[in-house]
């Protein structure tokens, strides 16, 4: 990667935040510090009416302090006015009311298949992954599923996933090198981060890169960076790197 004054985690989180539209109902789950910060950032910037939903069930929590070890802790309920826990977020998504779900996984292929389950045989796997959590029901039902993954290599972006945990309404995939988008059922390059290059994306992706034009991911603005400093002073958005 090229030297830059911008950190990749900030570029990724700002890009994720900008994908949230004002008024969207947005959910993130466990092990999800980057989306949690992205939702808080979006609400502080362009999307104050976005609705922040999470596992503990606090709707639009005003957080006194983020926790380093969890994105599913009671602090997400404490500073909120109403209670809408995980099972109801799922119900909401099933009836078509969830706009954005942030999810991750371990392998992704060009057809938008997501693997968060196993490498190898399901009953006696070579690698047992943590599991897709909500993915298998949220990716098909949320209006837009946004994937983030802090690894971008040929083992992550593969020709064909080992196991299909789910496939559905994946809209964007945010990585440390670029952003992919799903277009006509195929994963194509949307933008490249300024810290990377088309060559680097190609070398680290297990399927041929398709694109209609070369564009770069907009850099975090001064306003976004200063909001990030306030929202996440502990820098937990960088925890996965």
């Amino acid at each position, binding site marked *: 990667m090229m030297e830059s004054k911008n950190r990749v985690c900030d570029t990724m989180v700002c890009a994720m935040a900008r994908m949230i539209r004002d008024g969207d109902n947005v959910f993130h789950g466990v092990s999800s510090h980057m989306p949690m910060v992205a939702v808080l950032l979006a609400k502080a910037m362009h999307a104050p009416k976005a609705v922040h939903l999470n596992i503990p069930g606090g709707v639009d929590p005003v957080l006194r302090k983020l926790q380093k070890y969890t994105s599913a*802790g009671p602090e997400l309920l404490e500073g909120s006015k109403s209670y809408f826990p995980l099972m109801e977020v799922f119900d909401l998504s099933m009836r078509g009311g969830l706009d954005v779900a942030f999810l991750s996984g371990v392998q992704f292929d060009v057809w938008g298949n997501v693997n968060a389950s196993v490498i190898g045989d399901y009953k006696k796997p070579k690698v047992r992954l*943590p*599991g*897709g959590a909500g993915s298998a029901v949220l990716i098909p039902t949320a209006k837009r599923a946004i994937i983030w993954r802090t690894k971008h290599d040929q083992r992550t972006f593969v020709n064909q996933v080992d196991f299909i945990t789910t496939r559905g309404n994946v809209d964007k995939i945010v990585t440390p090198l670029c952003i992919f988008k799903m277009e006509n059922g195929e994963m194509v390059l949307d933008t490249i981060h300024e810290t990377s290059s088309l060559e680097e994306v190609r070398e680290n992706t297990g399927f041929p890169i398709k694109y209609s034009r070369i564009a770069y991911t907009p850099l975090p603005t001064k306003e976004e960076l200063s909001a990030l400093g306030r929202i996440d002073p502990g820098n*937990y958005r960088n925890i*996965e790197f």
Partner: protein
Amino acid sequence: MSKVISLQEAAQLIHDGDILGLGGNVLHRAPMALVRELVRQNKKDLKLVKTAGAMDVDMLCFGGCVSSVDAGFISYESEFSLAVHYRKAVESGEIMGNEHACYTVISALRAASYGVGFMPVKGLVVSDLIGVNDYFLRIQNPFTNEMVTVVKAICPDVAVIHVQEADEEGNARITGPLFEDVLFSRAARKVILTAEKIVPGSLFSSGMKKADIPNFLVEAVVRAPRGAAPCSCFGCYDIDRKGIIGFKALKDREALGGHLLSLEYGDHKGYGGSL
């Protein structure tokens, strides 16, 4: 009538082969004192159920107490990374990792609480999970002829739930996120509570903030201050990082035995292992 019993007696109510529902979520309000006692009592063939589990599931797997885990997600979160013992045991074939979406665990528990054998799940459409697991089936909606995925009911033999307050009769109030615990209490055949505090029942009858779990569903209550430690318990304590890191550093079952022995006195006295 008082249902308060000791931690050792409570663990004896859980039998080898039982389907065991665990309350809390990841590192929050997991019933760790009872989990430790189950390992000390050398339970076998437990079939664990949880939406998202971490140290509780990992410790029971490490202790050799488990034959299957039905869950949507088993891992510590970012800071403490993977549940190594669960992972190894599934990879070696010792434990069957029955992967759900968290929602299909919820749906399976709802089926049990509604007294029906299965539950339709809308979202699970394109997934290899459907074919490889016998608890998912695609059937026809009899009203519209559309295909729908259904999940088989899960009726835990026992649900173990750690709460902040319970009275002697088993009325329990949870402060903060409930996670799936109220549902567990309705779906399970037997409910065992571990409680930070045993409170007088008048606390619930005198105000309008009632118990979340009523006594008639509850089999036993254990006084277990710090009973979720080293996991968090809202309003009482946050995680104990040293406790989690210490557990994660244990190399083998012998070391686990030593670790559990060092916490035994505190657990049995009702001090959850941190004194």
